[in-house]
């Protein structure tokens, strides 16, 4: 069986397998979602109309034994940014699709009535079922019921109430290994795209799947070995290293010390209370409570940065409490209490909200007077407004920029309509260059300059030096390529420093594809993805003037370093040579 595309027509409630076109064979993950979206979606279409498409694509090696490769790309035109979107998630759902040789699921059209549907994908067929009984319900209870109904071996993708009300802050939710609805292709409002089509869930049952085809076993096995060696020896990614021991929240203290951890809607870069919600304190609590740490988002990860956070006493497992989520719903709202943050994250997962966008939204809501900074209980009440579909809730569900506009707040930390993540670009300039210039809207994962600027991974760069076009471009291009492979972006920490690790990645691609790519082919491959995305955005109306940070970053000094974002427009335009 060769690789195939599953085309899902929601207007007709039909799903058909097609052969993967020959010119798509070397495309996976983000390369495939962005190529299909660029080819098949009118850049000027309404993102929540029948002409948008939602594309799911596992990476090229996803579903194999290659370490740390359980990633999925979800793409479409974003209702948040108005541009092309790729949101990335780690989940066994991705690996199941890979083993069923499904290169992409393309959801198109739109169901006309009020019904919601569930699509079940099996190796040899598909089935639509009505899903109305799970509409208007929280995803924690719903995922439990879905596992009861479909068995605990399936993978589940779903959208929540935030998506049902067309919220541009809604994400697409996937199961973690415990079956919790805690793994998100969160960014850009793609949850609302899925719901707009009348599709509520996709269930994947891989029984009878043939597994990923590997055309050159020798090259593949050699690559796995080299990459495994790199990941298990590099200080950042190895077992027992800081990422494995404390999770991504190990960043709280270092970014706070560096003066770049945004506090209270980006009004300061440091607060001593941040230590109370650090990865170190959280790891201790998880141990005390009987949660899980370390843990993986998808089987086969050797880095294992994940965890299961619980209420006190080990009750009500929530899932992973990531650095970005913890910051967005914590320090960015002046909240320094792990239990408050954990419950806010649970509420986001339950409603199907992107935690970064929700935290950015809450920051501006607090600045706009809907709650006091620091009031975690009131923040939870505001999230409940979304659950109750009140007018206020409908505003909040549309994210940071929309909420700021509704409340007359002018400090609006977004680029291309998407909320900034957990690093203030005034203190750390390179990440600001990425926020401004990625086709995705403000996104740290698009070109993670922090690694070089703060941690000295992949070389060193002074965070205050405004000459960062080259650093950001190189990282963005490499990231796009990694996002196509299905490897987790965190392998970059090891392969940026260990050349054999990068060789291993390329060997595994050659193994799967039967090609003879070299590491020199990687930048060109990544650049092609970015070009495709930029072309789409251009046709959707974006110009280089959209590759800018909001004005306040250029004018308001950030404590403690008292820096503004002083990267020139010329430097920003140098990233893509505009």
């Amino acid at each position, binding site marked *: 069986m060769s690789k195939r595309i599953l085309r899902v027509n929601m207007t007709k409630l039909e799903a058909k397998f097609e052969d993967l076109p020959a010119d798509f064979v070397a495309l996976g993950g983000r390369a495939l979602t962005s190529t299909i979206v660029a080819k098949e979606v009118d850049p000027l279409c309404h993102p929540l109309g029948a002409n948008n498409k939602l594309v799911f694509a596992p990476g090229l090696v996803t579903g194999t034994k290659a370490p740390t490769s359980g990633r999925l790309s979800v793409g479409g035109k974003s209702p948040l940014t108005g541009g092309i979107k790729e949101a990335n998630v780690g989940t066994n759902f991705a690996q199941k699709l890979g083993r069923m040789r499904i290169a992409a699921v393309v959801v198109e059209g739109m169901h006309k009535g009020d019904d919601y549907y569930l699509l079940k994908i099996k190796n040899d067929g598909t089935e639509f079922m009505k899903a109305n009984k799970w509409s208007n319900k929280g995803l924690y209870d719903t995922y439990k019921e879905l596992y009861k109904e479909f068995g605990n071996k399936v993978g589940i993708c779903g959208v929540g109430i935030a998506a049902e009300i067309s919220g541009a802050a809604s994400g697409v939710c996937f199961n973690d290994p415990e079956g919790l609805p805690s793994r998100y292709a969160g960014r850009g409002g793609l949850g609302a795209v899925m719901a707009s089509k009348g599709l509520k869930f996709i269930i994947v049952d891989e029984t009878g799947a043939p597994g990923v085809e590997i055309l050159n076993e020798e090259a593949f096995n050699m690559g796995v070995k080299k990459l495994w060696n790199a990941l298990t020896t590099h200080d950042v990614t190895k077992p027992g290293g*800081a990422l494995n021991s404390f999770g991504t929240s190990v*960043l709280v203290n*270092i970014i706070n010390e*560096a003066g770049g951890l945004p506090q209270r809607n980006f009004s300061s870069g440091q607060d001593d209370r941040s230590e109370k919600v650090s990865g170190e304190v959280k790891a201790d609590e998880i141990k005390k409570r009987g949660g899980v740490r370390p843990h993986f988002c998808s089987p086969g990860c050797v880095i294992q940065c994940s965890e299961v956070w619980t209420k006190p006493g080990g009750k009500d497992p929530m899932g992973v409490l990531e650095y970005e989520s913890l910051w967005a719903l914590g320090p960015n709202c002046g909240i320094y209490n792990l239990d408050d943050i954990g419950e806010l994250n649970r509420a986001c997962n339950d409603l199907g909200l992107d935690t970064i966008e929700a935290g950015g939204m809450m920051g501006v809501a607090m600045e706009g007077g809907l709650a006091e900074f620091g009031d975690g209980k009131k923040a939870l009440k505001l999230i409940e407004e979304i659950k109750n579909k009140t007018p206020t809730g409908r505003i909040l569900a549309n994210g940071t920029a929309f909420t700021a506009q509704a409340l007359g707040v002018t400090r609006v930390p977004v680029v291309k309509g998407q909320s900034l993540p957990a690093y203030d670009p005034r203190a750390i300039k390179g990440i600001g260059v990425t926020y401004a210039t990625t086709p995705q809207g403000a996104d740290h994962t698009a070109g993670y300059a922090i690694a070089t600027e703060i*941690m*000295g991974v992949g070389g060193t760069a002074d965070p205050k030096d405004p000459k960062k076009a080259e650093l950001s471009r190189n990282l963005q291009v490499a990231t796009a390529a990694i996002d196509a492979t299905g490897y987790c972006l965190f392998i970059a920490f090891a392969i940026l420093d260990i050349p054999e690790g990068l060789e291993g990645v390329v060997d595994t691609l050659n193994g799967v594809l039967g090609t003879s790519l070299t590491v020199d082919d990687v930048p060109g491959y990544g650049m092609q993805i970015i070009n495709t995305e930029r072309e789409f955005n251009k046709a959707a109306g974006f110009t280089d003037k959209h590759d800018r940070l909001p004005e306040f970053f250029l004018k308001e000094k950030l404590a403690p370093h008292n820096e503004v974002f002083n990267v020139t427009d010329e430097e920003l335009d140098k990233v893509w040579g505009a």
Partner: protein
Amino acid sequence: MKMDDKKNITVNVKFFANLRDIAPPKKIVTLPIGSTVSTILDLFTISIETKLIILINGSPHQKRETLIKDGDIVAIFPPLAGG
């Protein structure tokens, strides 16, 4: 006492993540003028080979030979990343 003030500096040293297994989270230390990052590592018996990320007053990429000044905040991390 005045003499001592001139000879010594007071520094706020912080250790993070796995380093807290071998050093305290925070300590104010008094060091002779002319002390470097290495002086601090010696004081806490951290081997010179240990890979570290060192920030002084929020500036990263500090070297072992960097001079420490009175009132500096020295934050010491193991190799880490995330995102």
